[in-house]
């Protein structure tokens, strides 16, 4: 849609990432390491949301597949984020099937219960957002909202790319991300700048 060759808006490192991936596809192992370092923090954050403490093991499995299949990949830096997130997601669900654990069952309820009361100001809430606390909050969301939020704000995918990873329509994913963030804001006691109505701008007519 109106993409004219300019980079899709996304992660700040997408240009560097695209260049590293292209060099890696020509066999440059140093470039592959560069791509790894750019992508891994977001991928790990996404996987922590799906499989909790098993995220590093699942990420390792995903990287074996990424390394093996790199020659198949076509796309730029933003595309590489989407491709790798898809691979990581498949490995995460394989892992969960093996564990016979559903993604939501490992939720860290305790983290949510240990929440301080609503914060008096926006800044106060956000300054105290530790990794574990943020993870506990996200894992408390319905799965579709959690994944949409993680892919958008942690992996750094745009709406259409997040939708492709999830196999859903962009409008559905946008709505899920919005609802998830709005719910997180409510749980954090952050209300300024948040409209009370859930915007259904894309009219994708979900149930």
């Amino acid at each position, binding site marked *: *849609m109106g*993409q004219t*060759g300019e980079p*899709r*808006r*996304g*992660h*700040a490192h997408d240009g560097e990432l695209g260049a590293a991936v292209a060099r890696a596809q020509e066999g440059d*192992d140093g470039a*592959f*390491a560069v791509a*790894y*370092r750019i992508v*891994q*923090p*977001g991928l*790990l*954050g996404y996987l*922590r949301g799906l499989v909790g403490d098993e995220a590093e093991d699942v*990420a*390792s499995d995903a990287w*074996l597949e*990424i*390394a*093996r*299949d*790199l*020659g*198949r*990949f*076509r*796309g*730029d830096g933003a*595309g590489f984020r989407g*491709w790798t997130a*898809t691979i990581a997601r498949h490995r995460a669900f394989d892992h969960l099937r093996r564990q016979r654990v559903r993604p939501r069952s490992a939720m860290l309820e305790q983290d949510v219960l240990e929440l301080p009361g609503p914060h008096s100001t*926006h800044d106060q809430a956000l300054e105290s*957002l*530790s*990794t574990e606390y*943020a*993870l506990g909050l*996200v894992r408390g969301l319905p799965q579709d909202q959690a994944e949409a*939020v993680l892919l*958008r*704000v*942690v*992996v*750094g*995918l745009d*709406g259409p790319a997040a939708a492709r990873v999830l196999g859903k329509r962009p409008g559905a994913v*946008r709505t899920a*991300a*919005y609802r998830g*963030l709005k719910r*997180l804001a409510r749980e954090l006691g*952050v209300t300024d*700048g*948040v*409209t009370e109505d859930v915007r259904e701008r894309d009219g994708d007519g979900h149930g």
Partner: protein
Amino acid sequence: MGTDMADRDTGLPGLPGLLGAALREGDVDGEAERRAVAAFRAARDAGVQAAPTRSQDDWRPRGSGS
């Protein structure tokens, strides 16, 4: 940080960026990186990276041609 669009879409300025930063936190494990790079070298040297592109591997922006 990949969050400008999320901010705009959600009307929640600041939250997506801070959430993203909090969840990307943590050291990249050097040993895990070495394993990934070793797997890359093994695949490269075995020639398996010449496998054909499947539809799920094609992430080129739509309309970019080629």
